[in-house]
């Protein structure tokens, strides 16, 4: 066991865990940030996507020892003072979610994509979002919501 201090959503957060513990389980079990979801444990579904230094990362395969002092942002850290981001708002306005389980990961990937490409094409969306599975298959609305967010942000 080792104590790690992580920068999560702008706050220093401590966790006493084994070094190989994936960031996902630190967030969920130790820091009470359960918005980041477990789906596959092998970086195959994208439900666990968070931002590490601004990049979309699968937290289920990133050991805590690799996080260091990098800035971690989770779905809970996107909205500023309760104000939803353009992506979160588009997700609500277009009523994207069905079960909703994958959507935190979808939103984190979409947010990273829009930071990189403010006006993404359908091909850009295919490329950036193909690692995020939606078992309810809300893909039509995910695509639409990314375009809507791009137009409003």
């Amino acid at each position, binding site marked *: *066991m080792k104590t790690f201090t992580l920068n999560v959503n702008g706050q220093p957060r401590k966790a006493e*865990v*084994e070094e*190989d*513990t*994936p960031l996902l*389980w630190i967030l*969920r*079990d*130790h820091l*009470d*940030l*359960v*918005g*980041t*979801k*477990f*789906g*596959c*444990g*092998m970086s*195959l*579904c994208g*439900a666990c996507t968070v931002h590490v230094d601004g990049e979309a990362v699968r937290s289920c395969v990133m050991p805590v020892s690799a996080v260091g002092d990098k800035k971690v942002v989770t*779905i*809970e850290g*996107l*909205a500023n003072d309760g104000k*939803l981001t353009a992506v*979160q708002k588009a*997700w*609500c*306005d277009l*009523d994207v*979610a*069905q*079960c*909703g*389980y*994958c*959507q*935190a990961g979808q*939103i984190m990937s979409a947010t990273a994509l829009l930071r990189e490409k403010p006006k993404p094409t359908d091909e850009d*969306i*295919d490329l950036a*979002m*193909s*690692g*995020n*599975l*939606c*078992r*309810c*298959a*809300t*893909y*039509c*609305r*995910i*695509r639409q919501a990314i375009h809507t967010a791009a137009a409003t942000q």
Partner: protein
Amino acid sequence: MKTTLPSMDRRGFFRISALAGGGFMLGAWNAVAAEEAATFSPSAFIRITPEGLVTILSKNPEVGQGIKTSLPMIIAEELEVPWEKVTVEQAPVNEKDFGRQVAGGSMSTPTNYDKHRKLGAVARTMLVQAAANEWSVSPGECEAIAGEVVHKTSGKRLSYGALASAAAKLPVPDEKTVTLKKVEDFKLLGKRIGGVDNPKIVTGQPLFGIDQKHPGMKYAAYVRCPVFTGKVKEANLDEIRKLPGIADAFVLEGSEDHYGLLPGIAIIANDTWSAFKAKNALKVTWDADERESFAAHSSKAAEVLKGKAANEIRKSGNPELPDDGKTVEGTYHYPHLSHANLEPQNCTAVFKDGALEMWAPTQNPGSGIDGIAKALKLSKDKITVHMTRIGGGFGRRLMGDFMVECAAIAQKLEGTPVKVTWTRDQDLAHDYYRPGGWHRFRGRLDDSGKIDTWADHFVTFGLNNEDRPGNGADLGGDEFPSRFVPNLLLEKTVFASNTPLGYWRAPGSCALAWAIQGFVDEMAHVAKKDPLAFRLELLGDDREVPPSGGRGQPYNATRMKGVLKLVAEKSGWGEKLEAGRGRGIAFHFSHLGYVAVVADVSVSKAGKLKVNKLSAAADVGPIMNLSGAENQVQGSMIDGLSAAWFQEILVEKGAVQQSNFHEYPLITIKDAPPVEVHFAKSDYPPTGLGEPALPPVAPAICNAIFAATGKRIRTLPLAKQDLSWS
């Protein structure tokens, strides 16, 4: 698209206080109000506080089908309250107050629509009566409008909050005596309304079963034998208990009952990762029967299909299938499927003082409670289950196995809450699978090119049983085209299998429609008729065909022809397309819904498939929530495509061979086509939409591939078929 909390209606509050207090001085009013002010709750479903807070409870599990929004909408419509003023709460499990609480069979809407309208109308009627009493006028002179009651002639008005305490004192009228709104006066139903949990979903708030957390909670893994129903002989539990973060490890004996407590090893840890790591370090000797093999079933099926079927399902007319070159034949095969919910199975519980409290992502709390009561020998009144939001059901969570094992673990940890979480490989390995099957079809056309004879030898599976097909593995005698062809022979052979079978989105239909609508297409081709025209002719005259033998559902040919024509018109059916591109059409009636689908695909010469577009027309009666309804149809159609294209569960040596999404792929956004949804205008009673749009997708896709390439696909998944053409 948000849930707002109404501010306190102070005027209403004092109005009630003044009435109750009569001539009290101002200073005394509040004390009187505290005594007299009462929440108006004419049923367990509705609460209106004197402050004007309107809460509507949603009785059924929310599994992504949108029921937590659409059922309360029905009450809100009749209650005549603006949706923005409504707070929705998940109901507790209590079938006395709420009736059957299940998410399955697309039945929530058809079985609750009338009842929910009446619930809303009863409350509205009482609020109107309370206002009429207050004004000493007849209720007929008053009208409920947008959360207020208005006296039509004087224009006086009182808010529901102001009327709550007085309405609470009135007797609740018989629901049969209240007047429902006219459908044409609906303000809310049929509109696009966002899901009530959307704001929490997009900000990552704890909603799901896997998000549950309680003080002092332990995290557990539960390891079952990879071979179905295998038992623990011995395991290195002493080593496991010494691993970092591990509190305990123990064996649960369980039984061979696929629906009860299955044998395994519980590992109790301080966090999920420690439990998962210890699971990987586990060395177990299992006592397991490894004979189950899908490959062996396949070989046997190939033999059996050449001969006679074991049982007749239905014979009508005079089905003769001479070997004269005019009998059309085709054998279809589809594989087992897993539900692959993105939220792996999980459950949280605490057992204390002989009682169990549980937080479960269950589609069917009643079955879980039954299973727990039986396995733990616990009286049902000692079991409390809270329904959490569910990260995908598709039928998997109708089964209570994950609740039973969590309860058994919690019982061992007396007083300590515990959350059991499965890994993905466990989730794929311990499902209740959509049964695979085979159909050997034979058919004959009459001189005019209509189907004269239809025969189907269905080979399916029973759970260690050669007489009774397993869950979701049967073929009913009324299955289309039964009742629509003059001569029919449906037969089956059941293979005994130890693979647990279950209800997978549109059970039965999800597989049958693919095979049947594929062979209908083959018959159309032999008849040299347009696939749409051939189907319309097969459905015949406008009429409702009654079920045979008095059970089952009537089949309304008029409605099915209606959706076929609608989707054909909207999708540009009949247009000339370039080589390598084709359109296919299919229809299916299930879950009381009539759905027809056109698929537009391109196939490269090398055999690469691209689905350009899917179009659907559905007749499911009036739509409750247009946003949710469209989302369900689009999602279930892409789900149908995903399964047909990529998915297959294979069992060898008694165990499932697929371990994660690289071996059991779900469709991704790049392969998901645009989906156009058209709802037929319909005055029939409203029916559910979680399932009926899925079955016609796979056959429409395969029929489109035939149109594009001339290749008839008779085996799924598509990813394993050679689609190349020249």
